[in-house]
C-alpha cells in the first residue's frame, strides 16, 4: 500500500515536471542549445574508402570511429573483439597492409586506401587457414574470446620468422593476452604451422 502511494506521488511529480518543461519559452531552449553547442562540439562526419578482406567500402563515419568499431558496427564483421579498447590485450588484432596492428588504436579515417584483413578474411574457398586448423587441433583456445586476435597475431608471427624457439614465440606473442590461459596450445599451434 505504502509503496503504491509513493509511486503515484512520484508519477504526479515527474509528469508535472515534464509539463512545465514543455512551457519553457522557445527562446530559453534555443539559448540553452546555443550554449551547449559552444561548450560541447558536435560530431563531425568524414568519408573514408577502405579495403576489408579484398572488398572495397566507402563509408561516412564519425571522425572518432576506430577501425575496430567500423569493422564491428558498420560492416558487421564481429570476429575482431573489443577486450580493453586501450591497446592492452590484442583481442582486436587485424592486419593492415599485411602487418599486424591493433584496430582499437587506429582511427577509421586514417585507414583511407589501406588494406585490412580480419579473421573473417583468412579462410580461402571455404577452407580454414592452416593457423585456424592448428588452433583447432592443438586446443589453442578455451572460451574463444581472444582467439581471433591470437590467430591474426600468430599468422604474422610466422610471417615475421619469429618462431625460432618457444621463448621467441612467447616474446613475439606477448601482445595477445588470454584470460583462459590457453598459451601452451597457442605456442604449439604456431610451432605446427611454422614447421610446415
Amino acid at each position, binding site marked *: 500500500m505504502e509503496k503504491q502511494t509513493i509511486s503515484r506521488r512520484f508519477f504526479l511529480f515527474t509528469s508535472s515536471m515534464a509539463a512545465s518543461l514543455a512551457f519553457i519559452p522557445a527562446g530559453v531552449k534555443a539559448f540553452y542549445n546555443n550554449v551547449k553547442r559552444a561548450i*560541447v*562540439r558536435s560530431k563531425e562526419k568524414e568519408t573514408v574508402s577502405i579495403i576489408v578482406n579484398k572488398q572495397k567500402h566507402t563509408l561516412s563515419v564519425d571522425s*572518432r570511429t576506430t577501425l575496430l568499431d567500423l569493422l564491428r558496427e558498420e560492416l558487421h564483421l564481429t570476429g575482431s573483439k573489443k577486450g580493453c579498447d586501450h591497446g592492452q590485450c590484442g583481442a582486436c588484432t587485424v592486419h593492415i597492409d599485411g602487418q599486424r596492428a591493433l584496430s582499437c*588504436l*587506429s582511427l577509421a*579515417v*586514417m585507414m583511407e586506401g589501406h588494406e585490412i584483413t580480419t579473421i573473417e578474411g583468412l579462410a580461402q574457398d571455404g577452407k580454414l587457414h592452416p593457423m585456424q586448423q592448428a588452433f583447432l587441433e592443438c586446443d589453442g583456445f578455451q572460451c574463444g574470446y581472444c582467439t581471433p586476435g591470437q590467430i591474426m597475431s600468430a599468422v604474422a608471427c610466422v610471417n615475421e620468422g619469429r618462431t625460432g624457439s618457444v621463448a621467441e614465440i612467447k616474446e613475439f606473442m606477448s601482445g595477445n593476452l588470454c584470460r583462459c590461459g590457453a598459451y601452451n596450445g597457442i605456442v604449439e599451434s604456431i610451432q605446427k604451422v611454422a614447421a610446415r
Partner: protein
Amino acid sequence: MRPFTFQRIQSLDQASARKANDGHQCIAGGTNLLDLMKKNITVPEVLLDITKALPDQIETTAKGIRIGAMVRNSAAANHDLIRSKFPLVSKALLAGASPQIRNMASIGGNLLQRTRCPYFYDTTLPCNKRNPGTGCGAIDGENRMSAIVGYSTECVAVHPSDLCIALAALDANVIIRTTDKKETIIPFKDFHRLPGETPEQDNNLPVSGIITAVDIPSNQFFKNAAYVKLRDRESYAFALISVAAALELNGNKIVQARLASGGVAHKPWRWYEAEAFLKGKNATLETFQKAAAIVVKETKPLSNNAFKVPMLKGAVEVALQNCLNA
C-alpha cells in the same frame, strides 16, 4: 572521446603552421594519443594527420644515421644498419610494447609519449601534469612506479619510453621543423625536461615544432652494447627499471662508457659520474660493481619505491656484463 575535426596534412610547412594554433594536435601512429583521447585526458579540437607529411626513411648521413619521424618502431628495430651499427636502439625498441604496437608506433611519437603514472591516467585524481595546480597525488601516495631521482615536490612521474633511453645514451639529436625555421636541432639530453615547477611540460618542443627525424652520430659502441629492462611481467609492460649500457673497448680497457636509465626519472637519465669512473678502467666485474654503486648513490627513493634502488644496482651490473657478451 570528444568530437574533433579531422584534417589530412600534406606538407611539413602546413603541419607546423596548423600545429601552432590553439587546440590543434598532430597524430602519427595514434597508439598513445588515441588512448589519451578516449580517456578525455587529451582533448584536441582539430586532429592533424601528419602521417603522409613526415619523412619515413632511414638514411646514412656524413655524421651517422638519420631516422625519419614516421619510421615505425618495428621497421627501425629490424633495419639492417640499425641492427649492425646501432644495436642498442634495436634492443631498446624490441623491449618496448608489443609487435602490434611497434608496427604502428612512429619514432617521433615515441619521443612524445606521455607518462604512465596512475594519477595522470585517472581524471578523478589530482595531478599537476594533467591539471596544473591540483597537486601531485603520487608523491605521498601510490608511487612504486615513480621516480627515484630528479623529481620535484610538484611531480614524481617517470618517462615511459625505452627507445629514448638508448637515444640518450648515444647522444642522439632531435630534428625539428618550426614555422620560422626549416631545421632546429635539440640534443637529446636537452629535449625532455625535469618536472620542476612546470610538470605539464614534458619537453622543449616549440609550439609549432614538428619532429622530422632523429640523428644518431656514428660510434664505436656497436660491439658492446646491452639493454636490460626489469618489469612486473616478462614482456609487454613498462619498465620499473631499465639500463642502456655501451662500452668502447681497447682490449680489456674501457675507452668510453655510456650508461642511461628508464623508470627512474621524468626524463631519460644519464649516469655521467659512473661513466667518468668507467673511463680508462679494466672491464671487470669489480669495476662494474663499483660503477653500479656510484649510480645508486645519486638516488632518493619515495615512500613506496625503495625496492628500485637494489634493482637498479643489479641491472647496471648485469647490463655492463652483458656488453661483454653482446
